[in-house]
């Protein structure tokens, strides 16, 4: 059951091979067995999950099911789910029970999917190794000494260890794609505005986007079918025509123009990873695609720009955690100011505080023009690079991350080294473009992800291109030793 696609699970449910309750129980037992070690989940609530499964079984019985009905989905703990503790990986929200559903959660509920639990993550989604979580680091199922990547590290480890058949993540600078690369599965960050941000706890509002995480591109397509859609509760949500991301999966990639940006293969990229990526590109060539050398000349500016814009927005987004209305409040304090200071000092971790400080600094009078405004201008230049590139090609490909999974604690005390993990993913967030990571090979028995970048709202095409690769290769079906 653990290596079945979402389509096959759906088939099993329809053919009564197993019920949703049995399926949910099966995965809950796996979570029980492995989570102490891997730490992929922050909150598990068997009662709630099984109640949803029971309801799903009645839907299936009465023929009102759709593809995801009855299927357990692990939800990143950044999505508010009514009645569920929703921590965002922070002591600040340790006691926070969400009183409402995020739109993404609503959509899964509407089709009768089962919430399997809330997955671990870097605190407020700030991190690339899942080491900033208040709830402790997540282990990479391929090697427990290594990090799973971040910030959606819990969802990533859950998929890799097959503790859940599907999961959600969010991606502000690479938080779906980098862990997908490091843990060896498929993860998609949609076009900004395709999936509603309502109820998704904000890190950097102009960059945050939720997306699916699952073994295959086909699974991701099935999940995206549920997640995508215009939402009046999110003013930045785009009114894009509803698409069925499953229908174009089997199209041929013959004649597909793949842009290969030279800037993604320069200094900083691990040689062995580069080899894997080049092999994957060759596979596409063999399948009839055309490789075109392109340039994204402002790539080197993506990280500096990101680390101005994202902290600026975060510093403001996180102001609401002040101890006044909900969440953590320092136990002892002298007056209002003291309460603010102590609450935020104690309630936030180091990385979050670092970014609040950076953000506050770049927005300050006298620095705003030099940092924030300039960063916004460069952001436009980065978008223009892509616009030009997509005149020459249909999809862009390169590595998702500069290396395979790295050791826990290796980069923890070196923020800059950590930030470089997202060097290939960040520019798509800045441009608002969709991006995807799929397993492309292994280095030292560790997965390597191939990144696909599509043009705006070309998720369908991107998923088709990814699916074609997964028809030729079986990297996406590889699982860590000891998992089965």
């Amino acid at each position, binding site marked *: 059951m653990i290596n079945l696609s979402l389509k096959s699970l759906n088939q099993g449910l329809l053919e009564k091979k197993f019920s949703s309750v049995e399926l949910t129980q099966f995965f809950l037992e796996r979570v029980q067995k492995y989570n102490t070690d891997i730490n992929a989940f922050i909150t598990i609530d068997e009662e709630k999950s099984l109640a949803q499964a029971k309801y799903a079984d009645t839907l299936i019985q009465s023929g009102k099911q759709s593809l995801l009905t009855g299927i357990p989905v692990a939800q990143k703990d950044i999505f508010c789910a009514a009645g569920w503790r929703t921590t965002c990986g922070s002591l600040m929200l340790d006691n926070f029970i*969400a009183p409402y559903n995020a739109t993404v959660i609503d959509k899964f509920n509407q089709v009768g999917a089962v919430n399997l639990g809330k997955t671990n993550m870097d605190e407020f989604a700030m991190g690339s190794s899942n080491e900033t979580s208040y709830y402790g680091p997540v282990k990479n199922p391929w090697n427990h000494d290594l990090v799973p990547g971040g910030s959606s590290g819990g969802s990533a480890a859950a998929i890799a260890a097959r503790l859940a058949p599907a999961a959600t993540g969010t991606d502000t600078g690479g938080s779906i794609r980098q862990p997908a690369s490091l843990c060896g599965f498929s993860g998609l960050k949609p076009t900004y505005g395709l999936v509603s941000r309502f109820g998704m706890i904000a890190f950097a509002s102009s960059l945050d986007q939720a997306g699916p995480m699952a073994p295959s591109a086909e699974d991701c397509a099935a999940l995206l079918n549920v997640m995508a859609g215009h939402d009046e*509760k999110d*003013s930045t949500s785009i009114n894009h025509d509803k698409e069925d991301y499953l229908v174009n999966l089997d199209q041929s990639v013959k004649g597909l123009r793949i842009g290969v940006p030279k800037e993604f293969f320069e200094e900083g990229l691990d040689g062995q990873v580069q080899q894997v990526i080049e092999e994957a590109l060759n596979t596409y060539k063999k399948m009839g695609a055309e490789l075109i050398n392109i340039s994204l000349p402002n790539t080197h500016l993506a990280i500096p720009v990101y680390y101005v814009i994202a902290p600026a927005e975060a*510093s403001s987004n996180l102001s609401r955690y002040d101890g006044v209305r909900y969440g953590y409040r320092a136990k002892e304090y002298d007056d209002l100011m003291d309460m603010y200071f102590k609450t935020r000092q104690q309630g936030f971790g180091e990385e979050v505080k670092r970014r609040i400080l950076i953000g506050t600094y770049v927005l300050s*009078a006298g620095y705003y023009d030099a940092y924030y405004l300039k960063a916004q201008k460069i952001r436009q230049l980065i978008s223009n690079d892509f616009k030009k590139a997509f005149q020459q090609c249909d999809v862009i490909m390169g590595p998702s991350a500069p290396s395979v999974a790295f050791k826990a604690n290796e980069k923890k005390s070196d923020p800059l080294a950590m930030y470089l993990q997202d060097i290939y993913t960040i520019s798509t967030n800045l441009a608002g473009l969709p991006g995807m990571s799929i397993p492309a090979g292994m280095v030292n028995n560790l997965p390597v992800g191939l990144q696909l970048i599509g043009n705006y709202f070309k998720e369908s095409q991107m998923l088709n291109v990814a699916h074609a690769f997964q028809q030729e290769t079986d990297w996406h079906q590889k699982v860590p030793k000891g998992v089965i």
Partner: protein
Amino acid sequence: MEWDIVIGIETHVQLRTHSKQFSGASVAYGSEPNSQACLVSLAYPGVLPVLNKAAVDCAIRFGLATDASIARRSIFARKNYFYPDLPKGYQISQFELPIVNHGKLTIITKDQEKEVRILRAHLEEDAGKSLHGIVQGKTGIDLNRAGTPLLEIVTEPDMSSAEEAVVYAKKLHELVQWIGICDGNMQEGSFRCDVNVSVKKKGETKLGTRREIKNLNSFRFIKQAIDYEVNWQIETLEDGGKIDQATILFNPETGETRAMRSKEEANDYRYFPDPDLLPLEVTDAMIDKIKSTMPELPATIAERFEKELGLSSYDALELTSSREVTNFFTETIKFGSSAKLSANWILGSLFSQLKENDLSISSCPILPAQLAALIKRIEDQTISNNAAKKVFDALWQKPASEIDGLIDELGLKQISDSGAIDQIVDEVMQTNISMVDEFKSGKDKAFNALVGQVMKASKGKANPTQVSEILKKKLIN
């Protein structure tokens, strides 16, 4: 030394919408604390703002009413600061690109027209309230008001006295109600003014350092606060002191102002465009649609009064100072009384009685129909202007009276019968022979004295025009 006073006003106008600026929560006043605080008002994790289109319509209405330019693209920004009644830790406001720019409002002071320039008007959300003293030693927070839609209207420093400032504030107060964007309730905080005051030596072109008096919610306080502040600034400067830029509060009980925070302590609000909201796009079609629902504006009506009714521009502006006054006037002339006389009577006797009795025109005891009837009796010479004043005063005391009955009752009916006047003139000429002689020997003044005697003899009821004519005829013959 002589000083120039320079005043600019920022007014927070609470917009008359059903729901909040960025959420569906109600904005009804006076509800149980926090009963109107939805998840957005409470700034729960994950919630997002959605702009209330009705508030945008209000801003456009204001722009149209003040002949302003309406930005086709404006931006919502975040104003960041920490305070318990500000749940998000930032206020959403328009900073660099507001929706309304460069409007104007014409006011009249000391019988003169003056144009006050409106620099900008922008949309923003209100904060909540801190409640002290409900629980001993603790502060409560009521977030019912948090997120209430406001239009902040900022003038250029165009006013030069407390009187002008008050006239502007009143005019603005009337206008926002006239165009239906604000209920005007100052007690409930629907209309609050921040007043920037500075002084400079007479004729000096450079502006002095200004201090901002916060949150004045009555016209009387605006006057008192400015008067106090101006005196304080002048005294300080004349004593060789210097003014520091500051935000100050007015204490209505002592009538004094005191500094709240100085510029050195001023917050750095770290404004930046709110990434949760797209730029606000206003199309010509939106503006045209709103235009078609705009009431005729006071300035347009005033112009019409001047052109069509021949009123002076001063009278026309005064008669359009509020919708109620305009209605009273138009109702009155509908009954057929002369426009000029009606204007005189409303702006004269009626206004002074209202003022004396501290009444607004909407609670005036005299009805337009009655005033019109009174004026018609002047026009048809039934009563003299002086007699009409007596009738008016009597009517004020007994508002239900019928005009002709009242004139009879008071015995004020004018004598226009030439036979009767003839007789009185003869009598007066006989008893005042010396005056008649004086006139005949060339002293013209004696003529007026004789008219006075005739009027006196008729107890004021004789038609003065007729008296003059008859007297003249008899003296010359």
